[in-house]
């Protein structure tokens, strides 16, 4: 039904979803994605922006290789995938340290990750269980876990949603720093244009269901730590583009 390929080194991300349908509880089939074609250069940071419920998470699951039931083709950059789901999805019966350690390849140790843990401010929480953490902290652990595998390919599903603005802002900066540190191809899914503009160098605007890309734009580098003025300027430029219903 679909071909899957993994490039050994760092190739581009190529995702072609001709069709993806779900069978709903009452037996009707619902088309979620139709004719989506996405290409992201190796080492790039792409952001998919679309209205809530347009199928962003479905596309992300397909990109992650978690859902093979679609018509199309998927080629991912490199073998190692790091992913941050919308909910943190930590193991509640394991401590923060164990949650991170469990995804590491054999012989991996937390000692090599001191930098990462420090950047995300998790040092004093390693012995805690996820149930003892606030949502913001749990998100950080999920982000630490995704970066801990040294991913070639990083997927972020609304990682800043339902956090207060101060926490979200800090976390955005930390993610920006971390994606710069090692070369990786990153795809961010968000409904918030500001998230996308702060972090990404390529924007994909999605239509409503069935989702497809209605327009895409490249932003000039450097992407990291764009100042507030730069972000506002980009947002203003974007508002003049004919983006259809997808721009928020």
């Amino acid at each position, binding site marked *: 039904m679909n071909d899957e390929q993994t490039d050994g080194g760092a190739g581009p991300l190529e995702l072609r979803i001709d069709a993806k349908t779900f069978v709903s509880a009452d037996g009707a089939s619902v088309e979620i994605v139709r004719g989506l074609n996405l290409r992201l250069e190796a080492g790039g940071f792409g952001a998919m922006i679309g209205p809530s419920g347009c199928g962003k998470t479905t596309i992300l*699951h397909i990109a*992650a*290789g*978690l859902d093979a039931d679609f018509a199309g083709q998927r080629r991912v950059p490199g073998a190692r*995938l*790091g*992913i941050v*789901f919308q*909910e943190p*999805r930590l*193991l*509640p*019966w*394991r401590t923060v340290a*164990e949650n991170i350690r*469990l*995804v590491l390849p054999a012989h991996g140790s937390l000692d090599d990750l001191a930098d990462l843990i420090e950047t995300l401010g998790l040092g004093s929480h390693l012995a805690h*269980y996820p*149930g*003892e953490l606030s949502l913001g902290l749990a998100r950080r652990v999920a982000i630490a*876990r995704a970066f801990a*595998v040294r991913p070639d390919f990083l997927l972020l599903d609304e990682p800043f949603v339902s956090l207060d603005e101060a926490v979200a802002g800090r976390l955005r900066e930390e993610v920006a720093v971390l994606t710069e540190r090692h070369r990786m191809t990153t795809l961010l899914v968000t409904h918030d244009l500001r998230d996308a503009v702060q972090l990404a160098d390529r924007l994909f605007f999605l239509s409503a269901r069935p989702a497809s890309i209605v327009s895409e734009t490249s932003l000039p580098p450097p992407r990291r730590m764009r100042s507030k003025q730069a972000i506002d300027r980009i947002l203003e430029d974007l508002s003049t583009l004919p983006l259809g219903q997808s721009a928020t």
Partner: protein
Amino acid sequence: MLPRLFSLLALIAVWAIAAATVQSRLLPGPFSVGVATLSEIRSGELPFQMACTLARVIASFAIAMVLGTVAGYAMGRSKKVDRFADPWLIVLINLPALVIIIFAYIWIGLNETAAILAVAINKLPNVIVVTREGVRSLDAGLDDMSRAFRMKWLTRIRHVVLPQLAPYLAAVSRSSLSISWKIVLVVELIGRPNGVGFVLGSAFSLFDMTKILSYAISFVALMLAIETLLVQPLERRTNRWRRRPA
């Protein structure tokens, strides 16, 4: 703890009063049962018979838990396996314990293998049903997470699946333990030359109530000890992440 102790003492007191009023060989009092138990322990008879029974309980419990967990996992994970195996399960769950014991003794012979298998098969369907329910309720999100991060099979079972199944396995192993020792006694009564069930059978033919009571009470005490000293601490350990304040 104190109210429990008081309630237990009250039970013994009622027993003592009843025995004293009836004054019959068929209802010995707590004191004479205690004396008989002590002499049985000193002669080594009671520890030997209890050890025989306990070994059978442990062996059949282990077999039922391992096979039942594996089968229940397969049935909970795969609709195909479930559809195929479910009728077998229904047959098995509705076979009376006695029928399974008779089949085992006739087909396998009057030996240890038959005895242990008969008890294990009696417990098996219950373990399967409970495990299957547990597997059906596994968190799909954590499943996706462990697949996305390419966790190894063993890591996934140990750190993702088993902790979610722990409450189900704890519940079923408790009921397994208490029911399988009761079935073991029947198996011993019918076709074994030793064990608590055998002793109870021969005491029954002699109407030796003192012996019956001292063996029954000793075995209940042993199972109680296993429950409080082994099963409960284990459960507390697996649940320690829940106890912390959120």
